[in-house]
């Protein structure tokens, strides 16, 4: 494992340089909300956060994205595609959110069809992770194999230790970025910081509050689609908003529609959509395969805990805890998992 050190005093220099060479996307604070945005200088970055309100998945799957513009008169048709993605650095993303991007990869890049919009952003982006220094009461990344200092999916992983950042170089892309900006990386020995990081990871691993036990849950969901559990509490209290899906770093559903900008011109747009909305599956003829909140709630949790596993051999949840914090009625995926585990045990 290759590693380097960045002294804290050097960080703003590095970020300013990155902002010049790339589109730099980093966490920023807007009033009470932390979200990822393009920044032009290091001072806009807000790194003292534990979990942003919105995940950085928008870097690769923007909430709203133009697929092409058209000019159409009925007899003539012209289509103009947007420019391809710019070179970007995503700085300061948390390990769970980066892991989430790796769960999106097979959706957009695997199987039969790729997705040029996602792929071009993915290829052109260097992901610099930032280890967590705290664990929230809603965090449970450990349950899905992640961890507060886990570098999975990142090109570089920064871990704050004292007045230094311990920087792990995980990919060639990361190495290239380090090489191109070597003046900001110290060449001192990283042995001590490597040990410190291990310690930090161990300490944080012991701080999780949410106890999540997935034993038997997948098997239960495999065996029975019509569990009586889905008739219980969660769907009754769900108000059917899309908050959980929009703050979720692994939700990838989208809608495609046309946005007319003139009589004969318009843009084809894709934007996030939510399986919690009744219109999501409503067909033009009026039939809806998931007509009530019960079917929709079931689908969401089945997707996270079963469907994504079935299709891509990856869990559809990374344990960031956003849906728990943001749900207006406190529907908690960890409770659902533990409830299902109990159902499985009693079956």
């Amino acid at each position: 494992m290759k590693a380097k050190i960045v002294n804290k005093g050097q960080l703003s220099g590095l970020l300013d340089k990155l902002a010049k060479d790339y589109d730099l996307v980093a966490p920023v604070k807007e009033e009470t909300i932390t979200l990822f945005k393009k920044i032009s200088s290091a001072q806009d970055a807000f790194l003292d956060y534990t979990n942003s309100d919105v995940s950085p998945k928008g870097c690769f799957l923007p909430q709203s994205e133009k697929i092409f513009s058209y000019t159409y008169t009925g007899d003539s048709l012209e289509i103009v595609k947007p420019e391809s993605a710019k070179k970007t650095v995503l700085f300061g993303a948390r390990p769970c959110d980066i892991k989430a991007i790796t769960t999106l990869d097979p959706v957009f890049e695997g199987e039969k069809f790729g997705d040029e919009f996602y792929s071009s952003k993915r290829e052109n982006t260097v992901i610099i992770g930032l280890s967590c220094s705290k664990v929230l009461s809603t965090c449970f990344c450990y349950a899905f194999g992640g961890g507060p200092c886990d570098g999975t999916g990142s090109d570089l992983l920064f871990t704050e230790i004292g007045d230094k950042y311990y920087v792990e170089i995980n990919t060639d892309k990361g190495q290239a970025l380090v090489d191109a900006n070597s003046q900001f990386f110290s060449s001192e020995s990283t042995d001590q910081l490597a040990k410190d990081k291990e310690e930090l990871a161990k300490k944080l691993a012991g701080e999780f509050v949410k106890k999540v036990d997935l034993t038997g849950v997948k098997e239960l969901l495999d065996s029975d689609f019509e569990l009586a559990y889905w008739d219980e509490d969660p769907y009754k209290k769900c108000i059917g908003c899309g908050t959980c899906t929009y703050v979720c770093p692994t939700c990838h559903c989208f809608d495609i529609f046309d946005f007319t900008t003139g009589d004969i011109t318009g843009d084809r747009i894709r934007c996030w959509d939510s399986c919690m909305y009744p219109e999501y599956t409503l067909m033009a003829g009026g039939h809806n395969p998931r007509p009530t909140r019960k079917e929709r709630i079931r689908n969401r949790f089945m997707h996270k805990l079963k469907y994504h596993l079935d299709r891509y051999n990856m869990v559809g949840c990374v344990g960031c805890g956003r849906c728990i914090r943001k749900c207006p009625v406190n529907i908690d995926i960890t409770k659902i998992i533990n409830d299902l585990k109990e159902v499985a045990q009693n079956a």
Partner: protein
Amino acid sequence: MMNLTKQIREQAKKLLEEKKVDLVIGFGQGTELARTTPVFIDSPEGVSALTWGPFCANNLAKYLVDYKNAPGNVAIVVKGCDSRSVIRLLDDNQISRDKIVVIGVPCAGQLEWQKVADEVKPDATLKETVDNGDSFVVKTSTGDHTFNKKDYMLHRCLVCENPNPVIADFTIGEELPVKNYAERFAEVEELEQLGLEEKSAYWDKQFSRCLRCYACRNVCSVCTCELCVFDQMKPMWVSKRTNLSENTVFHITRAFHVAGRCVDCGECDRVCPMDIPIRKLNQKIHKDLKDLFDSPTPGSKEGLLSALGEFSLGDPEEFM
């Protein structure tokens, strides 16, 4: 608050045992120390799940609409603000009076759960909460915490119009004094003072964050349309494209759609994942209703006509 919890449970148990209702909708302990979650109790044995305290922010009246066509009667636990929703739903003929039993609880204010969670150890569990007038004491497994209402309460509670339920078949606990806060519209007035450009910049900044998750709409107890204009695809009045223009249209339309019906429960504000001050839009309407038509808050009395649904000769005539 243990005493109130006990009384709520007893009342619910009695209603279920006597088959007066088939379902009780109330507050239960949530999965975070400082949160409750709506619970749906259908048997007398289940009432132990009910709780009460300073973490019962949700307005449960919204759920009544789900049961309007279901067989049987429903009991519901409401605070002062929630009770206005019940009246609005009755006035809108969304539910029938003989189908519901209202358990009213005078409310000493609700705390912002995240502010509380920030101060309590993550692994603590809740033991008890005590109302001390200006503060709440939250007793936990890892120690007691005192939270000043002024600093930790939801903003809506700081200018609470009436803590007492205005409709209730049973009232739990003592009525609380009604404080007519002079600063009820202070935030709105502050914004009104700004210049046009500043106002525009302020709201542009807020609206640009909007995710269009529609939590504010879905949580709203007076949003009862079966097909919402924002979901309608034929014609598509408002595009799903998330940009400042479409977001602005969404927020103005949403606010104006509930004008004259909004009961000022502040749920839209509470649930917004992006902390957009949605209630400030509704409060502007409330303020204008008061200034122009001397109209009380919708739902604050039974049988009130909607200010925007009636005409009187004294109304200002700005468009003749």
